């Protein structure tokens, strides 16, 4: 196991270097002058522009700039934003908000998804199954920003149950955005639970369990369920990284001060350091979540060994 984890961690290095190079290249290629809006309506003094460009190495060739940036990144220096805060400070403030949002979404998709999937899968083709299948189909076809806008309209404005935006970062105000963020993954986790339970109910070992006189509840609840929930747990774990990266729309819609909004503002204000570093952090979370899931899989399923 130790060998497997080391190998996977080493494999992450080229992916991370490739990601930063790609992102840096894209951020570098962004049209527009980064000093253009710094001094309000007036043109910036030439001296200031020169100092700014020297400070951020803007006149170096692309690769020198990138290596310089990578060197800083390795030393934990993600750069300074135009408002004087370092990116690390901003990340420290905003990271908990995005994590809270993603955790709400993950709990939602895990609890509701598994419950609905089990109810549907136990009686395949029944009324609940049809209902759940139709509902997941509906969820899959509504993009997050439409669900979000509709939720703001219905639950925020018409019914007044939830605050329409979540600028304060309180848990209650993050609830609706979290559910909106998790809606799409909820559809996937429901369907996965259902399919995998249906497959396992047909398996020979369930028939054996019933034949040797176990009650239906025990045969399904203990034998089939344990095996069917393995892929679901994998999916839910892996979706955590994706949810954090996908939170950009939800954060913008509900005005949540998270990493997504930091990246979005970085794009609007053409601040390269606010894009490359935070996106790299999200990619790292995505890769680590996948690794943890793979390790967990071997722990839960003794048939799978990574050695």
């Amino acid at each position, binding site marked *: 196991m130790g060998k497997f984890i080391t190998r996977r961690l080493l494999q992450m290095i*080229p992916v991370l270097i490739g*990601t930063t190079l790609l992102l840096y290249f894209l951020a570098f290629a962004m049209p527009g002058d980064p000093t253009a809006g710094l001094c309000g309506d007036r043109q910036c003094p030439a001296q200031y522009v020169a100092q700014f460009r020297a400070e951020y190495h803007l006149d170096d060739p692309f690769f020198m700039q990138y290596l310089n940036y990578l060197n800083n990144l390795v030393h934990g220096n993600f750069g300074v934003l135009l408002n004087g805060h370092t990116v690390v400070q901003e990340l420290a403030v905003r990271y908990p908000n995005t994590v809270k949002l993603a955790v709400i979404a993950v709990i939602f998709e895990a609890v509701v998804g598994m419950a609905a999937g089990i109810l549907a899968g136990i009686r395949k083709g029944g009324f609940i199954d049809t209902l759940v299948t139709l509902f997941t*189909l509906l969820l899959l076809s509504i993009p997050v920003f439409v669900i979000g806008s509709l939720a703001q309209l219905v639950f925020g404005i018409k019914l007044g149950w939830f605050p329409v935006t979540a600028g304060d970062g309180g848990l209650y105000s993050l609830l609706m955005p979290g559910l909106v963020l998790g809606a799409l993954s909820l559809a996937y986790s429901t369907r996965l639970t259902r399919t995998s339970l249906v497959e396992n109910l047909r398996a020979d070992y369930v028939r054996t369990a019933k034949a040797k006189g176990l009650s239906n509840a025990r045969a399904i609840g203990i034998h089939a369920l344990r095996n069917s929930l393995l892929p679901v747990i994998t999916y839910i774990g892996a979706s955590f990284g994706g949810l954090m*990266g996908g939170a950009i*729309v939800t954060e913008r819609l509900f005005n949540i001060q998270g990493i997504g909004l930091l990246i979005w503002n970085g794009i609007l204000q053409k601040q390269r350091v606010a894009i490359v570093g935070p996106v790299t952090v999200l990619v790292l979370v995505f890769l680590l979540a996948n690794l943890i899931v793979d390790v967990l899989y071997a722990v839960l399923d003794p048939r799978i060994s990574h050695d």
Partner: protein
Amino acid sequence: MTEIVTAATPRPDEPASREQARSLWTDAWDIMRRRPIFWIAMVLIVVFVLMAVWPALFRADNPLLPNMCLLERARQAPGVGGSAFGFDSQGCSIYDQTIYGARASILVGIITTIVASVFGAILGTIAGYLEGWVDAVLSRIADVFFALPLLLGAIVIMTALPTPSSPSTGNYWLSIFRVVLAMALLGWPYPFRIMRSAVIQVKPNEYVLAARALGASPLRMVTSHVVPNSLSPVIVVATNDLGSYIATEATLSFLGVGLPSWIVSWGGSISNASSLGLIRQAPFMLLFPSLFLCLTILSFIMLGEVVRDALDPKLR
């Protein structure tokens, strides 16, 4: 793919050979056409494609022509003043905008799916067939693009690409291809991985070894034996991804980094309708483009499910 289908489908005047000539594709077609959900999806898709190709068929007028929008009828509710879906805050007919919005969505969705799948499948075939260092290099490159979330990466790429500013036919296609490029760049690793593992599974089969023993060139082995037999999972992935590309394009346009404002698109219309004051005042502005967008995605998802059920032998 068409070649395989026509080669395998027996002519109707030869009922005797029907049993032996059954291929994966004829089997799949037989399964699909018996499912009502397939026909529902197909009817919806045909309607939306017609809408994209020929909006005049639905008695919609081009909302970009001059004098189409009258400010005095701004935000009139549906049914009042002659538009079935009401008017937006510029006084433009929401019905016209919704019908004309189909074109951009469908174009972007279909072209992105084709570009990402073909590119991914070709590289996947190369990686899976050659293996060794070529495979290692291509797989690592795919890992980089795979680790970037689709939406986040597409936003960054879209802002890095130059924006065509003035409305013209050339710029219309340029704008469409900007979005296609951004999404296909991030979308190809999935078909790549699927194709690669399918090719690795197919390669050691006897019929491929037999072809090699008969002296077939590598190119011939790949094109006439390996690729036809490893194509079906990629087709499943492609039909499943089409809906999510349409959703991502709408999201990008909603955020204001996708299609420019002078191209009518559902994402743009929803963006115009979704400021909080307007949601309160004129919710129908949000409702109709959202409804059409969701129905389009729904029809492609349903098609994807039917195709998956028909082509995945495990589920039979």
